[in-house]
């Protein structure tokens, strides 16, 4: 059978197995660098800002935000969807690429999964604090209660959200954790610190690396992966249904579920790119995260970007073809033109146009440009959610109630807070967990190294 290697070399430097272990775990044993302290201080301050903003929200009321009677959802929901989208990367990465037997995922999936877990935590925060009466948030769970036959409204997409996101969070976290067990055991065996030995010993669940263990491990990973794969699709489909099942022009479209899932993967991959370029640079993982990894991600992004462009065009086409006057207004007069033109065209430029530069190999090879483009994708995807949430609500059916929306410092503060949580989470991950799945990289070493 003819076989052509599409990918380049995935592990460089003619590594031995021991060398890989040493390389990957090196940052864990090294003295904590100064930048790490600086970074975590900054991110902690960001968390503090977020905590103050949340305190203000909970103690005074949602009125401290910029939302109003007409645009009742604002930054909170935009950021919620944005974070959920980013939270798609890890699982999508690991699972889809695992199922598709893409070997190149191995150096990246660990970090991507970590990112997922932290991003979903950030996302989950928003629907909570967004509630008017957070102290009654438990109403949203279908628990047996003393109020007679009073259940949740199983028709409500918000209820589906609760189920989908909590399931997704648990599945992602478990998947991530199970993947780390062999590596925790490696650290446990190598470390000299007694505390670390105990901690990693506990976390590794008594892993001894025998063949039976590996067999179980592989099966569990595959099973969980199989379970989580539909979840990846389901979660963002359901998030999209918050919008798609409503009657608002610009929300009420059947394209939303696939469009949101693809968009989520797009933003997730974008964030992976951003993060991995930093990791590679800072921890000198050039041998493990190679040009060809970025090349693979860039190619995927190009493809997804084309899907996004198709989705945007389809929306516009259907708005015109469907002949609904309200939808037509929302798309043509409130997005393509009108008050929110800036946001719309930022979205189009960042998501549909800029990634097309990845067609050029030169650009794919230039890590600096790739990094900048990944940032653009993150911005573009944020604006996509902004366009969806704000433009539809601010100018809907009755012109009498049209109103503009601008966030207040409280909303911005909460967003800063979640950025802080995300960065803090990632920093802790850098410091205490092997960033690359050691065992998995070893598995592909024979085939794809030089």
């Amino acid at each position, binding site marked *: 059978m003819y076989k052509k290697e599409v990918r380049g070399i995935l592990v460089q430097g003619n590594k031995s197995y021991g060398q890989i272990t040493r390389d990957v775990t090196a940052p864990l044993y090294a003295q904590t660098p100064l930048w790490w302290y600086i970074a975590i201080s900054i991110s902690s301050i960001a968390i503090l800002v977020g905590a103050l903003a949340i305190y203000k929200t909970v103690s005074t009321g*949602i009125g401290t935000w910029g939302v109003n*009677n007409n645009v009742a959802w604002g930054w909170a929901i935009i950021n919620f969807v944005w974070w959920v989208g980013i939270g798609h990367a890890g699982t999508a990465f690991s699972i889809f690429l695992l199922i598709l037997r893409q070997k190149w995922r191995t150096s990246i999936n660990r970090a991507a999964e970590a990112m997922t877990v932290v991003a979903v935590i950030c996302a989950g925060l928003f629907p909570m604090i967004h509630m008017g009466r957070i102290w009654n948030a438990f109403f949203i769970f279908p628990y047996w209660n003393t109020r007679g036959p009073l259940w949740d409204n199983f028709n409500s997409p918000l209820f589906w959200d609760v189920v989908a996101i909590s399931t997704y969070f648990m599945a992602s976290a478990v998947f991530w954790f199970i993947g780390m067990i062999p590596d925790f055991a490696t650290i446990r065996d190598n470390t000299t610190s007694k505390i670390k030995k105990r901690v990693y010993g506990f976390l590794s669940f008594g892993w001894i690396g025998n063949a039976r263990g590996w067999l179980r491990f592989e099966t569990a990973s595959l099973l969980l992966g199989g379970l989580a794969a539909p979840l990846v699709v389901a979660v963002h489909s359901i998030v999209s249904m918050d919008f798609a099942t409503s009657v608002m022009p610009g929300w009420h479209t059947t394209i939303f579920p696939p469009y949101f899932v693809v968009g989520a993967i797009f933003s997730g991959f974008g964030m992976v790119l951003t993060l991995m370029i930093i990791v590679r640079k800072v921890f000198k993982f050039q041998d493990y995260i190679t040009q060809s990894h970025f090349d693979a991600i860039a190619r995927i992004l190009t493809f997804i970007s084309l899907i996004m462009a198709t989705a945007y065009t389809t929306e516009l086409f259907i708005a015109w073809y469907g002949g609904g006057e309200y939808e037509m207004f929302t798309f043509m007069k409130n997005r393509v033109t009108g008050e929110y033109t800036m946001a719309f065209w930022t979205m189009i430029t960042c998501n549909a146009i800029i990634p097309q530069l990845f067609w050029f190999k030169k650009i794919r090879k230039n890590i600096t440009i790739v990094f900048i483009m990944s940032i653009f994708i993150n911005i573009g995807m944020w604006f996509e959610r902004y366009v969806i949430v704000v433009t539809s609500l601010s100018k809907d059916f*009755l012109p009498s109630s049209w109103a503009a929306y601008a966030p207040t410092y409280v909303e911005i503060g909460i967003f800063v807070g979640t950025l802080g949580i995300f960065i803090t989470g990632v920093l802790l991950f850098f410091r205490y967990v092997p960033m690359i799945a050691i065992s998995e990289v070893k598995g592909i070493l024979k085939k794809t190294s030089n």
Partner: protein
Amino acid sequence: MKKYWQSLEDYQRIKTNQEYVEKPEPEFSIEGMSEEEKKGKATRRDFLKMLGFTVGGAVIAASCETPVRKAIPFLNQPEEITPGVANYYASTFYDGNDYCSILVKTREGRPIKIEGNDLSTISKGGTSARVQASILNLYDNARFKTPQKDNQEIDWGTLDSEVSSQLKFISEQGKEIVLLTGTIISPSTRKLIEDFKLIYPGTKWITYDAISYHAIRLAHQKQFGAAIIPSYDFSKAKLVVGFNADFLGTWLSPVEFTKQYSAARKLLNGETSMLRHIQYETTMTITGGMADNRTPIKASDEKVTLLNLYNEIAGLLGQTQFTISKPVVEVHKLAVELLENKGESMVLCGSNDEESQLIVNAINYLLGNYGKTIDLVHNVQLKQGNDIEVAALIERMNTGNVGVIIHYNTNPVYNYPNSQKYVDGLTKVDLKISFAESPDETSTVCDYVAPDHNYLESWNDAEPKLGFYSMMQPSIRNIFETRQAQDSLLKWIGSDQSYQDYLEKYWEADLFAKQSKFGTFKAFWNQSVHDGVFISEEKLNSNFAYQEAELKITEPDKDNAKYELFLYEKAGIGSGNFANNPWLQELPDPINMSTWDNYLCVSTLLAEEFGFKTEDVALINGNFEMPVLVQPGLEKNSVAIAVGYGRTTAGKVGDHLGTNIYPYMTITNGLKKLSGSLVSIEKVDGKTYPLALTQSHHTMEGRSLVRETTLEKYLKDPASGNERHAEDAKKNTTLYSKPEFTGFHWGMAINQNSCIGCGNCVISCQAENNVAVIGKQEVRNRRIMHWIRIDRYYSEEAENPEVYHQPVMCQHCDNAPCENVCPVAATPHSSEGLNQMAYNRCIGTRYCMNNCPYRVRRFNWFEYANNKDFDYNMNNDVGKLVLNPDVVVRSRGVVEKCSLCVQRIQEKKLLAKRENRQLMDGEIKTACQASCPADAITFGNLLDPNSAISKINEDPRNYHLLEEVHTLPSVSYMTKIRNKKS
């Protein structure tokens, strides 16, 4: 079943199938244990222990609870008061400007709501926003709580002795005693003032109106020999022409006029004609917005236009014409049309200008309207202010001739154009007394304040029109240490009588004789108090001969570099006496949807010229700055500013809002005019001022929200303008079964031909449903809480747009988008078709608000009650007395909205059940519907084919808002029809 045995004895027993006999428990002899203890029963000690524990536990648990609120039961159960059941008392609203016959709803002895009195032939059960809001004035914490001397508290005894002795002293000196009052329509009070004059012979009674109608009376004096304001009857007219007369909003008797006007334009029961209305006005008013044809004219061109109209009519009738300059607007067609409706038309002018009013009277006389649409016999007793006497009084005050001045229901320090001169004059008056109910600009410069009762605490009568009497009775004991002004006057003339007795005596002596129905006075009195109204059978003077008066025009000042300033009253705030009423401050202006401010209205053309946008700032006369609001329909070279703002001593709510523009009233020939000032305008670059508007987009964007047609087309096809309804009905298909109801399916219909947008329903709903006031900043944040709002749209050209009002409340959709998105099922559908809110269940995700195409859901963004940041009526104990106990006050974080007054539905349903009968159609009236002066709202059971609402639903004019969204609303709208002539 297998048998198991434990011992051989047991085995034996089982074998012989013996019953197991329980051995008696061995008696443990524990020393010191009583019999009860052995049996495990609680002893006294145990009881005490348990008691101690329980009480202690309860105390600890209770200490975490919210503070205890005391409800003190009646010591003696008063008659007529049943807790939970409302009592209604007929009474009269009169604030010096507007008259309205009302019913006061009281619960547990406190008034909580005002309804219209159906028995009144004048207001016919309608009210205005101001009448509705007046209930809040009763519970205004800013009211005087005791009498005052030099702004310090004193007691009534001291005040009475000091005032009486000073009155006597000054009277003996021969100095003038002046009673400066607003228009008094109470015949008994007028009698009392005569009595007062007998005791203090130097007394002069002068009537002062903030907004004067003196010219109408002067003109009638000249032409009919009597200084009267005639009463107008729109129901007899087929054509009404208004010149700056905002008769639906603020002019003379708007509730009465609205009732008549809307009845003549309903087109509900197959009528084929409707009242036609043409309006010439300077700024856009709700009256102009309702007009079939509207022409913006300069206030200074009004007289020329009127006289041209006179000439055209006179010419057509072959009578003498007057020489005048060229007409500014073409009025020939109008003259022809007026003549076609001879005796069935009416020309009205709102200017306090004698020349204008003379011409108007002459026109109406030529058209034969007197005695038909215009009634001189039952002339209006409102607005009796005499500008000339007031001006003379100020002169005398400044020369030191006035010894005493008593202010009753008047506030000249605030609203006299030259108030500085008035204040200067006051300093030369020896004794200054005010009867003000709450502190105002005048009362603070008075020596004594003898605070008056609120009208809901007072006995009084009223005669809004000659021969039409109205009764005011207290519905609550005075809350503060106040005393009715009339009682004070009685006290000061040395009478021991209470005013209640005085009033009763007056009715016995005077009015009893004017009727023949009742044999005894007691019966007559009781019936009058019960009904609240009484029409005299007395023959009135009807001898009014017309005398020609010279019609001439004094050319007004013109300056091309300057702009004509036109002052107007806002529908809510009016002349400014209710400025401390937060409901009225937050009532959006029906035309420009602004709250909490006044501003400089500029026309669209002027805005273009200056580069003004709404919220820019203009410098007026190089003197003061005001925010700008671009007002379509305003005459292009005029600017307009609302009076009633810029109060400095109104109370926490009303102080320092906007600018006091009364100083820009002009006085020509002794008459106070709202127009006539010429001002220069400059744009203040780079400066803006935030205005709180509740609507910022003004067109329908071509959407068929308010459907309209013309009378001509309607007569050919009743469904004209509403073609979409049939189309959408065809297209509206669904996979799901239609919701079915048994018994009741509540529905509402709004006749857009009737609705004038006055805002009465908004305030009525606010009072009924405890809707919170949120203040200017929050309104600006677009978070107004009103459950019913009146959308206003413009169409056609911006210089003179057509205006549409559309009241929008929860549409109670049978396929409600809000219901299925709530994750916790806090907003379900009732079995009677109501979309309900379970506040306790709501967690505030606001998904329902987003998914409501009508945007009628309101979120409690903050805690609006008991919150010092929202220091309105719900933040003080007095203000909270206005709350309706049937409706819960919503807490922070929950969504609320119109319930179709479910508490009223339940009340009437229970009543019918108790009386074991069917609920009658029209028995339930929602708050917005009950007092609507235009009768624009119908409510009822859609399942009853004979109900009024079902009939409307079958009318070809009926449609649902956004019916193409397939929400299946229970609220419907009826096409607006304009009586346009092509």
